[in-house]
């Protein structure tokens, strides 16, 4: 990179970065270091003394069936949300890309759930599936299926997956549509002239060219399912019934503020930190490659 024309000043640049750095240190780096520190400490029940316990908190977490269960719940939840949200968004994006007339209208009508808060999305779906008054649960009842996500763990999982997917489709849709529109039309036309039908064209040309977008979205969707769905879980199921929807982020919140387990919660935070760092690294390595591509 060529050297830019710059200004000379001893104090000004520090003043300019000061607000950002101050917030970063006080509310990000310091608390994160505290979480690291507390994760190797244990506090007595009265909060009077703390002592160094090494990796005991981590050992305890991975021996805790509750935590392992939460890991499993998170995995199921993330896989379901990512698969559904990506699949449906791709279907809609391909359709919108093909529709000549009304494409912009469809786009407008499909993107706005992005603006709905996860917790509010949860409330919308909870109302539809309310066991006594919900429209959908009523329809299911007339079909002979008694829906009650307050008692049935699987049904609760289905409900939060639906709400989380509904909210994420619009995001994926925008990126898929942008990706589709970036594919050179000449490639598609060449294939059509060679006699490839729409299906063949999709699988051998469109999808491979779309795979960088799809991979990027996969990472984003996993991050979303891991971290941004707290509002849905908290407002719809509170992790229940019987912890059937207790994802990791909900558990770390619950253990810190309801169960008041300081060391355990800190250790869970550190594990989550490792997960985010891993996902961020994957995302940035990928972006690097996309630039070359």
């Amino acid at each position, binding site marked *: 990179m060529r050297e*830019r*024309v710059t*200004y000379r*000043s*001893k104090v*000004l640049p*520090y003043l*300019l970065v000061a*607000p*950002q*750095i101050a*917030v*970063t240190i*006080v*509310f*990000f*780096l*310091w*608390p994160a270091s505290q*979480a690291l520190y507390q994760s190797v400490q244990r506090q007595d029940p009265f909060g009077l003394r703390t002592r160094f316990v090494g990796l005991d908190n981590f050992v305890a977490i991975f021996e805790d069936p509750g935590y392992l269960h939460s890991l499993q719940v998170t995995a199921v939840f993330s896989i379901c949300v990512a698969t559904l949200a990506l699949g*449906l968004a791709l279907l809609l994006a391909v*359709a919108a890309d*093909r*529709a*000549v007339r*009304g494409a912009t209208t*469809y786009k407008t*009508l499909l*993107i*706005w759930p*992005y*603006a*709905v*808060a*996860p917790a*509010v*999305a949860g409330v919308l779906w909870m*109302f*539809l599936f309310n066991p006594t*008054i919900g*429209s959908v649960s*009523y329809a299911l009842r007339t079909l002979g299926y008694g829906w009650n996500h307050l008692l049935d763990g699987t049904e609760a999982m289905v409900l939060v997956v639906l709400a989380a997917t*509904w909210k994420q489709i619009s*995001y994926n849709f*925008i*990126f898929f549509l*942008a990706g589709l529109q970036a594919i050179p039309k000449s490639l598609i*036309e060449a294939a059509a002239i060679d006699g490839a039908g729409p299906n063949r064209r999709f699988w051998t040309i469109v999808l491979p060219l779309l795979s960088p977008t799809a991979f990027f979205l996969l990472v984003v969707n996993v991050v979303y399912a891991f*971290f941004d769905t*707290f*509002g849905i879980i*908290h*407002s719809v199921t509170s992790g229940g019934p019987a912890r059937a929807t207790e994802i990791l982020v909900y558990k770390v919140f619950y253990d810190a503020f309801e169960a008041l387990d*300081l060391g355990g919660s*800190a250790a869970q*935070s*550190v594990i989550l*930190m490792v997960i985010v760092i891993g996902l*961020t690294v994957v995302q940035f390595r990928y*972006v690097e490659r996309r630039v070359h591509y």
Partner: protein
Amino acid sequence: MVEKQGIGVWVTHAILVLGVAIVAFPIYVTFVASSLTLREVLDAPMTLVPGPHLWENYRTALFHGTKMNGTPVIGMLWNSLVMALVIAAGKIVISLLSAFAVVYFRFPFRMVFFWMIFITLMLPVEVRILPTYKVVSDLEMLNSFGGLTVPLIASATATFLFRQFFMTVPDELVEATKIDGAGPMRFFKDVLVPLSRTNIAALFVILFIYGWNQYLWPLLITTDHRMDTIVIGIKRMLAAGDDQIEWPVVMATTMLAMIPPVFVVVAMQRWFVKGLVDSEK
């Protein structure tokens, strides 16, 4: 031109119409419920035709809230609006300033600062939940707008975005302002910020929604009902227990919680899509 007629076109439109219908259905039902009386909502199956009680329910929600909760929604809307605006504006301002410093000055520890900002990407609230709460509580910022907003206004994404953009601004502009005798802040204010207008607008849409839709953070920081944001307020109304919930009022509140961010997205669609795509690069 690839074939664009025949049965395929109908299938395409059918998929899209179905998609739009499924996306809109939960909102429609919520809207209908916000226009009925409680009795009509409880009478399963609930009608799917809007009733005449729309204004009544919204007025109750706005100025009285539910009977159990008793907090008027208009106050919650105000809290959400302040929170969203301060977070969006705050993030943009401090990111503009730090990107300006990183791109247009050479100073010791420049890259250290840059990496410190970068690291915040990897530290969402969820991974430092209790210690961050403790910091805010030690600073006596619980139940205040300061506590709701300041801890969220660091932004690696916005800083990177502006940094990328500033690096594309031609050097000639800097030199021209230097020759004209303008200092760095003058250049920043009169050249750089006006040039960043589009980026600012795009980012503003994304960040406004980000701020409006916050959930975990206000849940931790506010215990006083007067500080409830509307998203938190809905949750509190629902905590009343199934047979106590005034569904029409709650559903009116839900609609009110969605209208501002949805309006921003639809009205500023062009900037919204740009902001979304840019901030993920």
